[in-house]
């Protein structure tokens, strides 16, 4: 009964999406000064729809929690003996469930927008909600027609077939919802951009409405990517933290677009410049979200041929992609000319630096898109090529290096126009840091070029990030500025971690007998014992390693080689020793015939900084949101106060005060 309620809620939500679309569109046809009688339904439709879609997701969550094996989805993706937390997270560990989550978040953000956003003109809001309804409708149709999560089995299964053990991990429990919320938050930015474009309201007021959505989505994407990268690092058992895998690229591309959009929308809000850029990036960002969903969800990555054999789902998403992206860019092409260009600025100005970096971000996006899609394209013609780190790293560095340099200088520039002479000291400092660090590091050893450049840039960027605070009273610096400083500093921290990992990692692979000792960096690692142990749905061989750092008291690490039986698969559970200056990464492999065990050890200096940096970047985003919201609330309170005072003055019958000449 519960799943049927979910299904009914989903159908009703789809119907409301139609109402929202029609009603929103009707507001565009109202005569000036009047309200179209149809237009009043858009907001309530969006809100009720949000409740229904969330309800549908909640019912599926419940079915997974109680392992309702009469549901096809539960039977094929869950197992009664899984721990409860992984039963719940299994809800989005499969195609249908994750699409339902996607749609749930989409509806919820549409509901939030229509419930709380009162600043936009009615026509713009109507157009925005119409677009949001149109997007939602497509994905409801996809769920209901091509991937119904509530499908029942004719006969309930005796036992479920379980969840991929790699996904039975807390990292993967939080990673997809965060990422999806980010993807879908961009849908609101997209709808707002289209709404503003359709009603010719591309102005700072619109940008201020759009900004928190972009910032919020960007924060979630940042956290999602950071969590995903750390998960891959400790769960896959080989110490890699970024593989340029298409699935990773699918999350990186919206992030790149959202980063550019966030900066662009800030310029529009503050300076009324970059109007067309903001709209274009708004369309691009959500297009990348949908493309990411298509790549991950259509099965096209496993095999283009498998996709061609059973194309229903993939073709459906591809069709939606075509309609939304094609439609949006068509409207953009038709209307962009009508959007005035906005305020002008010199090349050497903060706007100029932002434009430069937006172009660089877009170029990196183009490279990642090319490297991700090209192999899929050639595979369709039976030519198989691989595009990996040796391609992505240098190709994206061509654009990333100038971008990072400009990023160091940009926040120091004045708006509108600036003189290089004013920044002589800062420019010299940044250049000296880049060159000095690179020279210093290459003096001590031979390292690959990119990590070397990364170290130099990270040092310069870390210093440059805090330079905007120079000469300012710290207590009076706006919260949003702190956000920028911390986010930029976070990029430097992350870059430092990546460069250190690339340049200084040490690896030790060895077959070790019980009692044997291996040396890596300053660590002595002794294999004390190997014991079989059992978990709720797995068995494992667990090694006990005592690690002593430079003769200090030993610390115990216990990596496991786990074997799951449903579905049958084995995973390596790495054990990590985290120090402030890096991580010791230990994995146990197979036993050789002579009784020795394969042990893999890595010492990765400062590798944790990669993810600390990611968290700092996200924190910066949160501060930026908090700062903007605080200013907004203050402004609203002040204008309400002003209005009351004016009303009081009028009630007293006193003459209005004449402004002093």
């Amino acid at each position, binding site marked *: 009964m519960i799943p049927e309620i979910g299904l009914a809620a989903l159908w009703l939500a789809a119907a409301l999406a139609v109402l929202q679309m029609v009603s929103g569109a009707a507001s565009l046809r109202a005569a000036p000064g009047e309200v179209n009688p149809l237009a009043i339904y858009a907001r309530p439709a969006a809100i009720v729809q949000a409740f229904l879609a969330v309800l549908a997701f909640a019912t599926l969550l419940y079915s997974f929690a109680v392992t309702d094996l009469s549901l096809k989805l539960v039977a094929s993706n869950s197992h009664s003996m899984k721990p409860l937390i992984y039963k719940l997270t299994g809800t989005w560990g499969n195609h249908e469930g994750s699409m339902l989550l996607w749609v749930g978040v989409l509806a919820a953000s549409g509901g939030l927008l229509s419930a709380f956003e009162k600043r936009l003109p009615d026509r713009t809001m109507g157009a925005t909600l119409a677009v949001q309804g149109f997007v939602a409708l497509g994905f409801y149709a996809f769920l209901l027609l091509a991937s119904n999560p509530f499908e029942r089995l004719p006969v309930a299964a005796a036992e479920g077939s379980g969840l991929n053990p790699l996904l039975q991990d807390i990292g993967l429990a939080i990673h997809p919802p965060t990422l999806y919320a980010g993807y879908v938050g961009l849908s609101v930015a997209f709808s707002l951009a289209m709404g503003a474009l359709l009603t010719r309201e591309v102005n700072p007021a619109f940008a201020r409405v759009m900004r928190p959505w972009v910032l919020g989505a960007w924060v979630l994407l940042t956290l999602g990517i950071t969590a995903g990268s750390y998960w891959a690092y400790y769960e896959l058992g080989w110490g890699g933290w970024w593989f340029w895998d298409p699935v990773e690229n699918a999350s990186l591309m919206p992030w790149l677009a959202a980063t550019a959009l966030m900066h662009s929308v800030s310029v529009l809000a503050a300076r009324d410049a970059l109007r067309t850029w903001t709209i274009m990036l708004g369309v691009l960002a959500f297009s990348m979200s949908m493309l990411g969903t298509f790549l991950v969800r259509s099965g096209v990555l496993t095999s283009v041929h498998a996709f061609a054999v059973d194309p229903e789902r993939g073709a459906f998403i591809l069709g939606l992609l075509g309609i939304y992206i094609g439609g949006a860019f068509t409207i953009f092409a038709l209307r962009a000319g009508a959007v005035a260009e906005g305020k002008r600025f010199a090349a050497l100005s903060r706007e100029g630096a932002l434009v*430069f970096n937006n172009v660089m971000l877009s170029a990196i996006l183009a490279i990642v898109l090319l490297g991700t899609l090209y192999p899929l394209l050639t595979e369709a013609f039976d030519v198989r090529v691989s595009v990996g780190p040796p391609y992505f790293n240098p190709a994206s560095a061509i654009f990333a290096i100038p971008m990072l340099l400009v990023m160091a200088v940009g926040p120091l520039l004045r708006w509108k126009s600036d003189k290089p002479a004013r920044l002589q000291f800062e420019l010299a400092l940044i250049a000296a840091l880049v060159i000095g660090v690179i020279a210093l590091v290459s003096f001590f050893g031979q390292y690959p070029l990119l990590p070397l450049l990364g170290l130099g840039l990270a040092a310069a960027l870390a210093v440059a990030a805090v330079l905007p605070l120079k000469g300012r009273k710290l207590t009076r610096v706006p919260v949003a500025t702190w956000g920028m400083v911390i986010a930029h500093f976070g990029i430097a921290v992350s870059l430092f971690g990546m460069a250190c990992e690339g340049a200084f990692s040490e690896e030790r692979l060895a077959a070790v007998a019980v009692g044997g000792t291996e040396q890596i960096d300053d660590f002595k690692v002794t294999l004390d014992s190997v014991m079989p142990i059992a978990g709720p749905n797995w068995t494992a061989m667990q090694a006990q390693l005592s690690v002593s750092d430079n003769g200090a008291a030993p610390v115990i690490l216990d990596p496991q080689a786990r074997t799951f039986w449903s579905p049958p698969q084995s995973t390596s559970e790495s054990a990590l020793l985290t120090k402030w200056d890096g991580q010791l990464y230990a994995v146990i492999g197979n036993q050789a015939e002579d009784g020795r065990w394969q042990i893999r050890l890595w010492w990765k200096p400062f590798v944790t900084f990669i993810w600390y940096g990611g968290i700092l970047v996200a924190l910066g985003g949160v501060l930026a949101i908090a700062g903007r919201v605080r200013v907004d609330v203050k402004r609203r309170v002040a204008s309400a106060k002003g209005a009351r005072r004016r009303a009081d003055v009028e009630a007293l019958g006193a003459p209005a005060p004449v402004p002093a000449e």
Partner: protein
Amino acid sequence: MIRWWLALVLALAALPLAAQDTMPPAPYAYNQLSDPKLEAEASALMHTLRCLKCQSQSIADSDAPMAGDMRHQVRSRILAGESPEQIRSWLIARYGDYVSYEPEVSSTTWPLFAIPVLVILIVAGVLLRRLGRRRSDDDNAGEAA
């Protein structure tokens, strides 16, 4: 093609059963070369070779027996004095372009190199248009005001 994928899936499914009780397929699959310089060369090469039985993993990042086998091949050939590029072309001859993560310019991969050049040109064009012209506009605006 489909049959090939099926075989792959079956091989993957059988993997955990085989993994626990067989010895590593080859001595250099899980053991490093004693010369750190040669090992660094081998490791750099292994990170750019695709594990053919995994989804988007290099042979340096995989537990699949085939990846172990290939690691053994790479290390023993490096030890025998072959250059990384020789080994790469030997593997490409054996498994096709797909095995190498480092695409080379060829009749099937030229767009991978042509398009970035195009992107650089577009970037230069956009920047010149957006930023290069700006100064004179600003001067005009200044004169008008």
